[in-house]
């Protein structure tokens, strides 16, 4: 018995050095089952937002902004994967500013968890609506309502990344929102299109007041009217025409971080205009990797 134990110990020691290097902390550690490439201790330390306190902006703590504002909001709701703690800030910094693009697939996977939450919430709402409708109108035995028995999961029709300015793009080499959207796009089979463009470079946001920032943001984004892109959008809309018959187009705007929501609102407004000009109605959601 003793010798077996010592053998196991030795075997463990032999195995230990080959433990994979964690993409977050860089140390060699036992890999987590939840996120590939991430060690167990980093994985347990992720501040997931599983149940957002604010149903509107997806914040994990109370949120005065959403309850205060009475103006119509162009976004149905925002959901974020994690709370923007100092650890998450450091992680995002490594990816976005230092350019460690190996983190993109993992951050994208994390964003995918937020999508799962959004999907579940929306599906439940759908069922609730269907049930309240059907209770008023009992279905006939000849035509069972399959959609009520097997309601399809809610699914977005399109992903749109928040654009970065061309100066940023040249400096950084990539648009983090687009890379995150790419991961989601491939996992969920939802196309992403760069339907927004940034018309100018904004200065440092932190020096401005909230109202200044909001006013500033308004003119920053515009719909992308590039012909080829609109053709592709048209093609996509045709292909999903069947499911669009009785509902608006469900679009998710993707970004790395949601701070005040001014970026998202400005993007959503520009997007509403673009989609409206094409003769469609849109329901816009937003999904970000982190919520501050």
């Amino acid at each position: 018995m003793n010798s077996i134990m010592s053998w196991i110990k030795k075997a463990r020691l032999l195995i230990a050095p080959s433990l994979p290097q964690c993409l977050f902390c860089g140390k060699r550690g036992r890999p987590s089952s939840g996120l590939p490439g991430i060690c167990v201790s980093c994985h347990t330390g992720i501040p997931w937002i599983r149940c957002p306190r604010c149903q509107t902006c997806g914040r994990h703590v109370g949120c005065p902004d959403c309850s205060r504002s009475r103006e119509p909001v162009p976004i149905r709701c925002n959901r974020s994967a994690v709370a923007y703690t100092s650890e998450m800030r450091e992680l995002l910094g490594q990816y976005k500013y230092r350019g460690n693009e190996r983190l993109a697939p993992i951050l994208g996977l994390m964003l995918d968890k937020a999508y799962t939450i959004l999907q579940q919430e929306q599906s439940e709402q759908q069922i609730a609506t269907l049930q309240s409708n059907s209770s008023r109108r009992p279905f006939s035995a000849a035509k069972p309502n399959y959609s009520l028995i097997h309601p399809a999961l809610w699914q977005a029709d399109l992903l749109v990344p928040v654009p970065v300015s061309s100066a940023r793009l040249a400096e950084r080499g990539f648009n983090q929102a687009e890379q995150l959207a790419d991961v989601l796009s491939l996992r969920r089979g939802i196309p992403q299109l760069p339907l927004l463009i940034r018309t100018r470079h904004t200065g440092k946001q932190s020096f401005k007041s909230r109202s200044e920032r909001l006013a500033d943001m308004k003119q920053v984004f515009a719909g992308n009217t590039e012909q080829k892109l609109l053709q592709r959008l048209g093609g996509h809309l045709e292909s999903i025409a069947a499911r669009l018959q009785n509902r608006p187009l469900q679009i998710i705007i993707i970004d790395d971080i949601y701070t005040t929501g001014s970026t998202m609102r400005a993007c959503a407004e520009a997007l509403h205009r673009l989609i409206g000009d094409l003769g469609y109605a849109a329901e816009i959601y937003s999904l970000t990797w982190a919520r501050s």
Partner: protein
Amino acid sequence: MRVAVYAVECYGSWEIRVSLNLTVDRLWWKGEGMGGEGWGGGQADRLVLLSQSLPLGWGVKLREGFRASPAMTLWKKEDWKRYVANCLKAEIRQEQEEGGLREEEWLTARIISGESMLDRTGGGAKEVAISGNYGGQPVFPKESLLGWGGSAALAAAANQLAAVLAGRSLLQGEAEALVAERLPDLAGNWSAAVQLAHLQGRIRIEAAVAYNNREHGGGVLGWVSKVKQSVKETERIGSREQGGGVLGWGRKMKQSGKETGQIGSREQGGGVLGWVSQAKQSVHVLGRVSEAVAGRGVRPRLTVGRFPVVTGRLLHAAALRLPQLHLPRRGAAARRGASRCLRCGSVPTGRTACAACGLAGCAYCEACLALGRSRACALLLRSAPLPAVRCTAGVSPTVAARRWGLSAAQAAAAAAALGFLAEPRERSAPRGPERFLLWAVTGAGKTEITFPLLEAALAAGGRALIATPRRDVVLELAPRLAKAFPADTPAVLYGGSEDRWNASSITLATTHQLLRFNQAFDLVIIDELDAFPYHNDPMLAYAAEQICKPSGSFIFLSATPPAELQRLARSGKLPHARVPVRFHGHPLPVPVHLHMPPLHRCLKQGRLPGSLIRTLQKSLARKAQIFLFVSRIAHIAGLLQLLNRIFPGVPMEGTSSKDPDRAEKVLEFRNCAISLLVTTTILERGVTVPRSDVFILDADSSLFDEAALVQMAGRAGRSKDDPDGHVVFASAEWSKSQRRAISQIRSMNAIAHRQGYL
């Protein structure tokens, strides 16, 4: 970034150039600025635009791989296009494989040109107007210099820029930050000035990651690890951390002229090491991210599950751009030579679609990400090599010794080093900087010894650098240097320091900061050469090799030089001086061995051997501060508990590298508020506590090598008031490391005795 690329014929010879600002090049080569200062450009016979906008890495490849042929004089547009496509064959093919443009697209999309810009061969100058964009920037009329008040103003700006970039190696972002701080007038409009300084030969324009056969870079330190390394060997080693590194004293080394010639292949070997570990890691990660995101599977052409045809097309447009995992193509790599990060010497392991250059696969370096990303299209600005000065001593060694208050042993070592600096250097140019080892025992006062050397370098108008692995040493040394050299306030550089872009004749820096310099210094003093992080870190070793001017000098400081350096010194191949005695003139305490069972057994049984307790008791009785070193952090808490029981009332603490309160505890230990400190090797260097004794438990542990033991023993008896501290090696086995450490200490004492320093 993207740059313009052109070929120029001047006095019958062709070359290829890259440009950040073609307006400047046109003025330069037309000779229009002639007469104006800084515009001594030749009159070109012909200018052929090869591309208005090409990824920087490709432009540099064209420039570096250029082979002139006499037929070029007769070449037409199509010939030049064919030449460019041929030179970039490998790049274009790779790009196509990764989903980028195909060769035809490169040749037709108005990217690769071949258009004549200037032809003076047929008598009068025929100038052809080029329309379109250059490097994504609008073309300016040739008369306008992008808002510069004229050619003279631009020349002045180029002068300033070349001056602040002297000895630097900076990525675009860093250069911009430097310009913003040092030359605010140039900020936002510096590319024309860079281009002019480049044409003047004062600033080199490089791609941060490139196939670089021209510049060997390495070999400066001379005893570089054995060059040839089979791939098998590399794979066995498996990861860069264990790979020995460029300084590589763990391996067989030869110091010969031949060696330098082979540096190229060494770099490749070293790179493969890094590569293997990275690749394994990425296989692991990407392979499991999901089927959809796996490695090359991300290609949008692949069918994605039950995806409608139309959206498949959409996906193609929104191509997933993630870093691609690149499997080694040994044959290809061997033929072309591996590309390297010019800043840190590593082989780039990342590759991704890049909006800055527009390539689907732009290589980037993952080893030095912490300092901002170095990639194939990132602009790296370096100054042209500066002439070195000979650090001849202005004053005699005896005068210097008196001025700096050196002891006899310190003075002798300083004199030897000064003699080395003053030696003529003609023969050394092809071999790179000369090296000198200052082997000074712990507590010898090596900092003071360097003062006369710095003085000699400064007196000769040279620039000096002191590099140290530890930030606290930088912080401690800075005020001492400022006091010693009041006329030359040192530039103090460490992660997060304020003087990032200050220039001074003395620079004091932590090792990572060295990556931002290139052949900048006449005198480079490397402190604790054997200490972390130079040891086994090829990146920092590479950086250290890059910073000294080719005919400058390195001074290595160490109390415990690596075995290979010791051997070179003994065999007379490495000039050196030993300081065998401490500044107070007393011999080093010789460690005593004490037999004890392994610590983990003692802790399990809950008791320490009587002999150890008695020895500790003696130290406590003489009111000594006790360093108690253990090999494992896990033992600290248990041992403290035990000691508290044995010596109740004695204030004691435990600390390690993982202890957030470490600095505080060390301070309390220094102030004698704590009299016994249980710790791991983190305190082996740097901490000086008066009246201290040293106990090393499990001294036979493989974690304690000879150098570590000498360093730990070196904590004892450092003060003048208590020069005879006690050192105890406690272990079950009498290991080779312990024997060697003791014999090293004994032999230093013997030398000191023989030379009459005791």
